[in-house]
């Protein structure tokens, strides 16, 4: 096949352009995939739709950033870890103050921030997690409760669980408990945490939340729904106990046999064989 000079030139030019643009497209494609990774401490504004859709809906105009009265929000600059031009905040620096009129959502010209979100308490920017019980001084028996007290939905999003201090034997622990059905992820607790590194941190919901399989039923909830026990309470509950140990139904629980610190043998096979033999 012979090409005339003109046609040859056209084909060469087209191929050259296509190849160059192809390389550029490939690199842009890879970079696009990479830039989907949002750092765990970068939190989207209230009402932000899920991250994958957000990167398609947010047109990087910065109007939410401008209308944030507390300068909480920043727009990712070139070289930041967050996808270029998208809004985020870092709770430890400046948390969301949870304005009742949600000006950031009002400012958004697209659907990147959900305009259907009317009450800021319904926002789910993330979830506060008491992530380090070794560092949190409440777990050491010290009074703090700063995260509990600073929480804008105090008592609902964070409340205190009073527990026995087993170490001293005579004191209480005031343990902060976060409830995911109320926590908005505003980050006030993370910012206020008195530690060098916060022991309570706002994390993306996808990281912070576990989920039971759908078939799980909690007995006590089912009991409440049914209005009474679902099993015959006269039946005595039976345990398969390791040899030598016994069970105190009055409260002490499992009591290991003579000379054993732990109820089970060091060799797990013994337990299995014991079960097989019916103990």
């Amino acid at each position, binding site marked *: 096949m012979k090409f005339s000079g003109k046609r040859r030139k056209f084909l060469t*030019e*087209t191929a*050259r*352009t*296509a190849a*160059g*643009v192809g390389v*550029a*497209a490939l690199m*842009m*494609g890879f*970079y*696009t*995939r990479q*830039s*989907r990774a949002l750092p765990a401490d970068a939190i989207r504004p209230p009402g932000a739709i899920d991250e*994958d*859709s957000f*990167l*398609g*809906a*947010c*047109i*990087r*105009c*910065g*109007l939410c*950033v*401008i*209308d944030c009265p507390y300068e909480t929000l*920043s*727009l*990712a*600059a*070139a*070289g*930041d870890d967050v*996808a*270029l*031009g998208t809004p985020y905040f870092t709770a430890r620096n400046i948390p969301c103050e949870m304005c009742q009129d949600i000006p950031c959502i009002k*400012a958004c*010209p*697209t*659907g*990147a921030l959900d*305009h259907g979100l009317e009450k800021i308490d319904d926002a789910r920017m993330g979830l506060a997690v008491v992530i380090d019980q070794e560092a949190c001084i409440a777990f050491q028996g010290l009074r703090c409760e700063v995260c509990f007290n600073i929480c804008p939905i105090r008592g609902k999003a964070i409340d205190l669980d009073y527990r026995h201090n087993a170490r001293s034997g005579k004191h209480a622990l005031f343990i902060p408990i976060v409830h995911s059905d109320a926590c908005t992820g505003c980050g006030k607790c993370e910012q206020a945490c008195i530690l060098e590194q916060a022991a309570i941190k706002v994390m993306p919901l996808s990281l912070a939340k576990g989920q039971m399989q759908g078939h799980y039923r909690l007995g006590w909830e089912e009991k409440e729904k049914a209005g009474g026990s679902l099993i015959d309470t006269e039946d005595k509950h039976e345990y398969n106990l390791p040899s030598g140990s016994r069970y105190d139904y009055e409260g002490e629980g499992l009591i290991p046999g003579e000379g054993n610190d732990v109820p089970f043998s060091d060799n797990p096979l013994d337990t299995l064989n014991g079960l097989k033999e019916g103990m």
Partner: protein
Amino acid sequence: MANSKAVQPGTDAIAAKGWIAAHKWLILRRISQLGILGLFLLGPLAGIWIIKGNLASSLTLDVLPLTDPYVLIQSVLAGQRPIQTAITGAVIITVFYLLVGGRTYCSWLCPINIITDAAAWLRNKLSLKGGATFSKNSRFWLLGVTLLLALMSGTIAWELVNPVSMVFRGLIFGMGMAWGIVLAIFLLDLLVSKRAWCGSLCPVGAFYSLLGHTSLLRVSAAHRENCNDCMDCFVVCPEHQVIKPALKEIPTGTGPVILFSQCTNCGRCIDVCSENVFQFDFRFNNTKTTSVANKHEVLS
């Protein structure tokens, strides 16, 4: 007379019209580019909120929404349904550029244009020649790529690398490493290839050239009979291929209006012409005169 290579383009025009008149449209463009950027900066810097946002989307005086139709199209392709504010803003911008010429965006608004104009000026000043050549169609391929990437990735992929919005947004919200892009484009245009970014590669310009395909406002070589072949307009024009038919093809019956959508309406050809050949005009004033005599009759 300016065929001599040592003479800078526009020398004759400066001699004939004075420096100001020979830079009129250039000065007006710079005022427009910097003025619009200044209006956006007035809020964050001085607390005077006339325009909020950036070129992607903005709100003027709390009532007028403006949205870049190109970024909105990418968002729609990414699977998002825009809300009314964005649609209204994009329609206003689209209508505006349908009337005044899409690539007016490039020469009267885009901050990168200042960079590439500077590179072109220095390249000419230093008499740098040659280098790589990019097909002028590359930008349309890249435009296709940006739309395809949005469709395939579900994200506005182009906005991760778009130098135009990166720089404009950066000046308002923080540049970060965006200065690197500015430098890269400057060096590309200066050393690698003449007018490479705006003239061959930029998909934003490609989009707006399509948008302004039938725009009313155009540059016209209305007095082309006065042309003295000095070539100054060809030297300064960022898309010099658009000039020749309107200026030189009188015998073929081609009208004097530059109809190519690649013309950025920058008006630099009007500035540098000592014979006042060019002027801003409307596309329908494209009377196909074949002789000088006819031309004068039509005009008078």
